[in-house]
């Protein structure tokens, strides 16, 4: 009897709205970075034309991101104080090591002051799967032919910073 009277005095409430609840947080997160001294490109006195490193990065391919990620921006920032130019290739690879996306940057040589390059790559719509399938990020740094010749004592540094802005939409799955 009491319960029925309670029922009658709850009004103007629509619990179906729970289906419309949508969280839209935006997260900023650091990704990979490196600081490469000029002598990293010298081995036993001679130049190394290319070095590569890679890391697993499967935070973005979790089922949570796959279901809720609507947009991802990757930000890259390169700083060069070495007197030589570089070509930097970033490969986004999936679990089968297939390339999902290649990003390439030409980094000019420094002529005393530091060279800065910025880029933001936006992934939305069909491109989004390049992020949600991403399992490995590979970074290849190529030392372009030129002068001055690098030696163990050469000054300068090539640095990369990167971060991601992730736009999520978390809603009740129908």
């Amino acid at each position, binding site marked *: 009897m009491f319960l029925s009277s309670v029922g009658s005095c709850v009004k103007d409430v629509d619990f179906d709205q729970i289906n419309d609840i949508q*969280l839209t947080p935006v997260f900023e997160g*650091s990704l990979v970075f490196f600081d490469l001294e000029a002598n990293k490109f010298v081995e036993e006195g001679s130049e190394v034309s290319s*070095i590569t490193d890679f890391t697993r990065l499967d935070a973005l391919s979790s089922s949570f991101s796959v279901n809720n990620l609507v947009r991802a921006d990757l930000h890259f920032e390169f700083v060069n104080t070495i007197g030589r130019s570089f070509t930097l290739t970033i490969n986004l690879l999936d679990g089968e090591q297939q390339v999902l996306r290649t990003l390439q940057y030409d980094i000019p040589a420094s002529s005393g002051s530091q060279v800065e390059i910025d880029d933001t790559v936006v992934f939305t719509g069909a491109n989004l799967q390049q992020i949600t399938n991403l399992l490995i990020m590979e970074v290849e740094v190529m030392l372009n032919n030129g002068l001055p010749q690098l030696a163990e004592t050469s000054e300068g540094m090539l640095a990369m910073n990167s971060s991601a802005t992730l736009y999520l939409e978390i809603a009740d799955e129908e």
Partner: protein
Amino acid sequence: MYIVFLSAILGHTQNKQLLYDFTRIPQVLMQNPGADTNYQWHVGLPFLSGVYFNAGSSGFSVYDVFADDGVDINDKIRNVINKADSNDIMTINEQVEFLYGGFKGNYGWHEDNYYSFGWYQELSHFNYWPNDLAILAYDGNRNYIGESFNLSHASVKAELVSVFHFGIQREMSDRFTLGGRLKVYSGIADVSSTNNKGRFFTEFGQRNEYIHSIIADLELQTSGYKIIDALEDGDNIADNLYQRFKERAFFGGNLGLGVDLGFSYRLDDQWKLTASILDLGFIHHSKDVKNYTYNGRYDFEGLELLFPGVVDDNNDVYDYWQNLVDDLRDLYDTTSTRYTTLRPVKFNSSISYSFGRPGGKICDCRATYRDYVNKVGMHLFMIHRPRYPQTALTAYYQRRLTDFLDVKATYTIDKFSYTNLGIGISSRIGKFNFYILADNLLEYENLAEAHNASVQLGLNYIVPGRN
């Protein structure tokens, strides 16, 4: 305006201001074992002698979120998040008496004693509004670079206990009644996470764009998780739960001990002072214990590539990512260490003044204090909470309308609310006593807007005392 005003109301779970000092109802002894009742004996109708339910939310109401007003629910949630703060509380409390009875001693020393005993079940949930965590989930960290998310905002306590009790109320003199009750708790399930510390923050980094830091001292203690497992085993929830409940409710759970103490003192025929302290006790959790801790500091600036990629003896690539995952996992631990929780201690005190005799008789020298038909009083309630005690002050008026009907009206204020009116009715038809007590009447017009509401009702059989 009305809603804004309501938003400031603090729920006051377990304040039984309507029952306290309502000595026509035997359950009053559960609020003050030294209440000056006058029964030969009483027995509650099993399972229906005391049913209590209370829910409260101080930060926002159901209506604030689910109002059918054409406003997008996400905008309403946004308002709630802006409005609520980390000291807002959400509570649910439910009690059912399975058995309750009492009798007066009938010879020698026992003649001045009233013994009462019973078995009830109690479910309680309490949490502070996890303000910063809600903001993090709703907004993310992008607009909060350089600001901290406070992890101590996560504070929750929930328990399901079965309580066996035995109390003695003794009339020390005509004026002074003293009482005590021993309680044995059988904890069925418990979740407790109230001492969390720490913060999460993102700042601009030195070597990479951002540096993310977590400084954490978090702990979640649980016991009776097999109950929860039973819930997760979807096929036979009812059977499983009942089985677990049966095992745990009869001293098979995590055992604890506690006492209630209280007194009533008549300053004269009309003035009365009472006080009680309830659930001064603990539960020791040793069965089905699972604790989760997250402890330490981690700063993450990104994955630093060292060039060239390192391949180890197993031809595996050095995994910067796995390193991060492992480091974070190192902060996490599970244990089955036994733990002890204190029950939420409650304190009550009242002072009341009785007046007015039936039929307007000015002096009937044989009349006692029991013959006054009106009583006004003040009641103070406090309950221990993880951060600070919750307090409520009630003014009340009680009147015997007829030989078979007593009513009590209450007006309660607490830290934020000035609008809580309650009413209680206790009737006696023959020797049957039916009572119903409900507060926050102003909001029954639309319960969804209520920030707090409680109701208690029950049926007893009472043989009254002779004087």
